[in-house]
């Protein structure tokens, strides 16, 4: 599967897929779509990436963020310090600075966390109804509409939860299976 054309195309297509999946998610309320379908499309984006580049690289690219950090030195001005931080974190310009003084943290999103977050969001959206003195999962809508996304209410939140859960679930399976 690791042909150059496929691999290169997927590198550019994955973000597009993702964007499309989010679009499908918010579109679902008025047109075909929704959280479940959106989640599946989003996961397919990553699955293709896994097929093309291997799961390790997918994790490195999309589910892991390395944040570089350095304490400000005495002789550096505040502006330069901030500029260095931004530079190091966006263009990874670490080399010029002696890397010993740089620390880094790895932030990782695990699929299981995504599942848990999704479930949490879905339940939370139901609790809103309870807090307002109605039954569990009673919908609540904001006044007015937001361009592109449309009306905002707890069902959208619920759908987002479904989206995250489905995404997390498929990723968990695919990552586990493609290991070894």
């Amino acid at each position, binding site marked *: 599967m690791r042909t150059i054309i496929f691999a290169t195309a997927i590198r550019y297509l994955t973000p597009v897929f993702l964007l499309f999946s989010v679009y499908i998610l918010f579109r679902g309320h008025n047109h075909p779509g929704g959280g479940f379908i959106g989640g*599946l499309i989003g996961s397919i984006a990553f699955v293709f990436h896994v097929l093309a580049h291997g799961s390790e690289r997918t994790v490195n690219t999309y589910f892991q963020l390395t944040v570089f950090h350095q304490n400000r030195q005495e002789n550096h001005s505040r502006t330069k310090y901030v500029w260095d931080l931004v530079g190091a974190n966006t263009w990874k310009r670490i080399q010029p600075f002696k890397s010993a003084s740089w620390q880094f943290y790895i932030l990782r999103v695990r699929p299981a966390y995504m599942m*848990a977050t999704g479930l949490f969001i879905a339940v939370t959206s139901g609790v809103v109804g309870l807090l307002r003195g109605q039954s569990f999962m009673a919908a609540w809508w904001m006044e007015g509409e937001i361009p592109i996304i449309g009306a905002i209410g707890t069902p959208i939140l619920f759908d987002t939860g479904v989206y995250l859960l*489905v995404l997390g679930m498929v990723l968990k399976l*695919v990552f586990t299976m493609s290991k070894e």
Partner: protein
Amino acid sequence: MFYALLIGILAAAAAPLLFRAIGRRVVVPMVLIALLLFVYYCTFLPQVLQGQNLVEQYSWVPELGINLQFRMDGLSLLFALLISFFGALVMLYASGYLHNDRLLGRFYLYLTLFMTAMLGLVTSDNIFCLFISWELTSISSYLLIGFKQADKNARTAAWQALLVTGLGGLALMAGLILISISADSYTFSGLTEQRQLVQQHIFYLPAVILVLVGCFTKSAQFPFHFWLPNAMAAPTPVSAYLHSATMVKAGIYLLARLNPVLAGPDVWHYALMAAGGITAVLGAVLALQHTDLKAILAYTTISALGLLVTMLGLGSEYAVKAMLVFLLAHALYKGTLFLVTGCIDHSTGTRDLQKLHHLGPGMKYNGWAASLAALSMAGVFPFIGFVGKELLYESTLESLLLLAVNFIAGVAFVAVAIIIGFRVFWRKATDKTQLQHKAGFKLYFPPLVLAGIGLLLGVLVSSVPSPLLQQGARAVLADETAKLKLSLWHGFTPVLGLSVLTIIAGMLVYSFLPAIHTRVTALQPVYKYGPNAVYHKLFEQFLVKAKAFILWLQDGYLRSYVMYIMLFFCGLLLFTLQRDTPGINITDRIYQLQEVRLYELVVLFLVIAALVYLLGTRSRLTSIVVMGLIGYSAALFYILFGAPDVAITQFLIETLTVVIFVLLLHKLPAFTYLSHQFKKYKFIAISVLFGSLMTYVMLLVQQQAIPSELKKYYGKMSYMEAHGRNIVNVILVDFRGLDTLGEITVLAVAALGIFSLLRLNPEKGGKP
């Protein structure tokens, strides 16, 4: 009363934390809480003594009759005082007994939990409330017996106690529910008013049997007595508290509580008298054969419990009085003796009678406590045990058989009392047992207090315990006029003669004890058929059979599981279809075939061709691709019939399935036919059955289309109320959102399950 229990539970939960914070001083707050509860229950005394019943009620699940209802009358108060006071002493004692234990905090957790559960048991009026407490005492007893979890005996004994009392608990629940159905009331006070209904109801006999099984397992009556001696594997404070003074009396308590409801028909009285009588004699006889002090005490406890049950079965006013007095006396002296035994064990490292000689000079406070308790146990004037024994004899004077039972148990008690109160401590011996260390304050103070109370209550029997016991007797007899006047001295009556005779006989038996101990080995073959052996045999057989059954059912082949599911589903469908028998009429709808369009036929043909090809192919890759083709065709059908949401989902799922298969493909072994030819036909038959049933159901559904308002309602409301034009999605996330929530939870759980299955590597012996 509810808040008292709440405080108990909170204290239990706090115990390990306190232990971590203040170490061994945790004993101070725990004893204080038990004392606080004791004082709290004492405040009920004036009202209860005037004959009032205090009631407290909180709704819990009113629809099912499950409410937190509490009621305080004489019987409840007697038990509550006993439990909380004894609790305080045992808490103190335990810190001396387990002074080096790392898990002391956990021990206090269990002990306080047990105390709370027991208090809940004796104060609850609602049957479910009682049942919950009942089970909680079983569970905490399990935890306490198995407290020394490194010891295999302790674990086995704990497991046995839990199984026996737990099974009894289930029987009890069934019995209580039957009673409540027949009287349509869920409280003991309500049941007492409806006693006529209960006793005439057809459920009376099964209810009585079930309740008796529950109470007999808890109170260690024959043939369920075997768990109690084994439970002596627990630390001694536990044995003293749970297995002699309180928990085993829970069964007695419930029998007494239900006495006004169920007593009357002969079956109740005879069942109680038979079981109680056998248990009393059996316990007495077995007690004399052992040389382990704790075992001796355990068997005399069983015997005493048997006597209590017998008295309840007798049911006369005298018998109930005797039961209550003896219950109090027994709790006091037996608790003391257990605590003293624990102390001996702690100081010398053994409990074997034949190795213990002349301990008195080294442990004189314990010696005094043991002697005082033993005198009470033997029924010597002026201890409360004397009053109890007199009453026991007096109530059974008319029945020779019961008198004999009483006499045998009494003789055994006297012999055991001499062993512990005299022989171990004070008999001069040449080889005096060496003490490893002296017993501290915490180890001799509680038994001394209990033994002193035994003497005090005996002397003051007519003024102190008498009014409370009178209220207790009224609760048991459901008779507001019952009188209970206790006095220490009855004059020279035949009963006094019997008492003296018992003591003399007991001394005789004591002098023959060494001979008995050498001869008991001859009885060993009999015990092979005892209930304990039967239990172990049943337990082993159960495990073996269960394993065989599971291995037969769970053979590990995916196809078997699919087959079971399909067959079960088909069975259900067939059952429903033949029960409701709505016929279908295809001929009326034959014209619909004309409406079939060409592209539908093309897709249908594609599916059939793919299926035929699938059955023939031997390559996994091909079958996956063909399966994908079938799935996509199904999605095409959805589009043709106007269900874009479903179609999209189907497309995506098919894609993912193929991809996941491809990921796993190289791990699968080569494709081979392992099944026998006959098995293949079996599978074909099952799939044909399943397919044709589904087709039939589809045809049926179309014919019997029910005009529904629902479609219209959703159509209208989805835009008006739910702000969405896509009805499918609005139903999913809004109208039926709870269903979706359940489904995604299942998805998450399934994903975790698959994850652990994939990570599990049985060949390498890996863990998930």
